[in-house]
């Protein structure tokens, strides 16, 4: 079974890396958008899956990074300087997000991040000498080495893999365990001697750096920045991606990004009522596939091999509750759904 999984994974990776050889620029554009959206969704998922914090303002962080790059790129600065500017902006914005939210959770966290996202959006419109205001910044150009869509896609793909690897490492680390502890019970963590607020601040900054990476890539991909990048719908879509793909799973955000980008950019050319479709997908997933697409697939696999240890475990109990498992969809006291298994890569 494991061999099949590894083989399948290898095949997917091979296909992903050979895509530039066989695909036309536009499909590559879409795939790049999927990679970028997946990194942003992954940053939301890091907070949602590990710490149990639902951010409705992450597009604000990624847009800030994007403006950093765009501002520098329009001034013909070296790509490395563009990155440095973006890093600085990302750190500052993430720090503000973190400091303002680190003593909150649940709905208050959601509301403050939403407000901060709207504030970034507002600033992008108002600071028009830096951001071009509502008209945005045109004339952004990618670094020459990734000017070609195929090359840029590979960059986005590699960055996505890096982000996945970092996420994987983080969830397996004792820091990741600390974050899951915070998710389960802040009071208990405090009483054990953990500085909970500091842990949340660090988590928001880690997540912010990831969102910033997505922002940089997005600015280079579209070679354009506008306040819409920090809009509420961008943040909400990132959350939808996480839910649809599977909260707390490693690959969930990638799958979710595929679905949402597919609907928004591809299916919308054929289906005029695509927002309704997106909403229905979200409703169906929340009602019937709590673990998202990835969770549902894991479920299927588990059911498919009843002799396996997963099948033997009582329903609702993860086969091996060790690490990385996390489905925060359940309310307090509710049992982990059957989809909450170990991530099979």
């Amino acid at each position, binding site marked *: 079974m494991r061999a099949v999984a590894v083989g399948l994974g290898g095949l997917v990776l091979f296909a992903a890396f050979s895509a530039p050889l*066989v695909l*036309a620029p536009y499909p590559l554009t879409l795939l790049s958008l999927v990679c970028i959206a997946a990194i942003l969704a992954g940053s939301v998922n890091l907070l949602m899956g590990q710490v149990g914090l639902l951010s409705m303002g992450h597009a604000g962080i990624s847009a800030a990074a994007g403006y950093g790059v765009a501002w520098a790129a329009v001034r013909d600065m070296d790509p490395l300087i563009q990155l440095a500017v973006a890093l600085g902006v990302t750190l500052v914005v993430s720090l503000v997000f973190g400091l303002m939210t680190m003593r909150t959770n649940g709905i208050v966290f959601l509301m403050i991040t939403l407000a901060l996202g709207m504030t970034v959006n507002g600033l992008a419109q108002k600071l028009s000498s830096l951001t071009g205001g509502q008209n945005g910044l045109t004339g952004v150009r990618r670094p020459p080495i990734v000017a070609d869509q195929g090359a840029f896609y590979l960059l986005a793909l590699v960055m996505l893999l890096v982000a996945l690897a970092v996420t994987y490492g983080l969830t397996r680390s004792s820091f990741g365990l600390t974050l899951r502890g915070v998710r389960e019970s802040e009071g208990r963590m405090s009483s054990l001697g953990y500085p909970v607020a500091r842990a949340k601040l660090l988590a928001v900054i880690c997540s912010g750096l990831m969102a910033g990476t997505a922002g940089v890539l997005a600015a280079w991909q579209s070679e354009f920045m506008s306040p819409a990048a920090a809009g509420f719908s961008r943040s909400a879509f990132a959350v939808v991606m996480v839910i649809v793909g599977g909260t707390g799973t490693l690959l969930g955000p990638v799958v979710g990004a595929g679905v949402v980008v597919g609907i928004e950019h591809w299916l919308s050319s054929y289906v005029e009522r695509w927002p309704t479709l997106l909403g229905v997908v979200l409703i169906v997933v929340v009602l019937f596939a709590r673990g998202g697409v990835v969770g549902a697939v894991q479920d299927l696999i588990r059911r498919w091999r009843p002799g396996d240890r997963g099948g033997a475990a009582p329903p609702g109990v993860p086969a091996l509750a060790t690490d990385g498992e996390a489905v925060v969809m359940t309310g307090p006291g509710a049992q982990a759904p059957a989809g909450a298994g170990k991530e099979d890569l």
Partner: protein
Amino acid sequence: MGHRSRGGRSARPVGSAALAVALAAVVGAGAAVAQDQSGGTVKVGFIAPVTGFVAALGQDMRNGWDLYWTQNGTTAGGVTVETIYEDDAGDPEVALTKARKLVEEDGVQMTAGPILANTAYAVADYVAGQGLPSFHITGADDLTQRRANPLVLRVGYTSSQSNFPAGQWAYDQGHRTAVTLCPDYAFGWESCGGFVSAFTNAGGTVTQLWHPLGNQDFASYMTDIQAAGPDVVFVGSAGGPDAILLYQTYAGFGLKDTTPLIGNCCFADQVFLREIGDIGAGIESFGYWVESRDSDEVTAFVSAYEAAYGDTPSLYAAGSYMMAQVIAEALEATGGVVDGEAFVSAARGVSLADSLYGPLAFDDLNNPVGPVYRTRVEPREDGRLVHVLQETFPDVSQFWTYGQDAFLANPVFSRDFTGVAP
């Protein structure tokens, strides 16, 4: 940037496998319709927002565009014009992705639309970068000013263009103080910039108010206007919901009866008139599309449009119709050949002596020079509110009377620079 070649097509299964993995749950991945460009067809990518907050404008654009091809057939210059529609939802990122899709996937040879300034800048920048012509009706000044491009042609007026005569006229009427109220972003800055620069250069003084885009409640501005007590109020609105709300509040505060109001092109547009009701009668505005103007072109277009869609055609429908007209006639001129700048040059040469907007000619930066009309909203025989022509200001340039060089030496109109005379 090539389109999908035949070779690419044979490799498709592998490609779609990768696509299918990434787009996991999207049903029917790989079923994307790939149409090869066959001889005798010119593909035009038409981008308009039919979802999102400006969906009404986008729908009108589609209607106007479709009407032209229905009336005149889709053959021009020996080639068949095939339109590929895309929805930008009013979002520049989406507009840009859709433009990429049109160019890279569908292999269009030119684009038309979209409407919002930010979406238009994003699309024009990209499409021109691909060496393809793009046609616009958006007002965004710099599209044919500081960011002009020989591949970009505007079949409409800049945001400020029709408001210069408004400022001059207001002063000539004896008004000396004005309050301007415009949305706080580029379109509003440019609209108010036109009025303010002309009005203050003539000798008037202004109080400038800016309201946020998507503003919820206009009451505060009405109180400010009451406090300023100006001779005249100028409103430079992007039309639609904001404008209706604004005028409703204006009337509610009793200002309609005390202070004359002048609107820009789009404040009291036809979308507005469909909804505003009786209080809309009497609004004066300055624009370039007058649906009741006495001209065969206009009458024919309006009756055909009303027969087809039941509504009076709006500025956006008329603009799109004219975009289609210009493209069709340019194709006639080139014999169906679309070749970048040469095609745009052909489009510039199309005769628009009696267009829907009146006699037009293009300036060096691909923007029309043409008449601006002062209109008054009145009910037609059938009770429908329409603009009725009051006065014509011929041959208005996007640079007004300042001259191109002097005008372009200034920065583009913004919150901080509306051309107030020193």
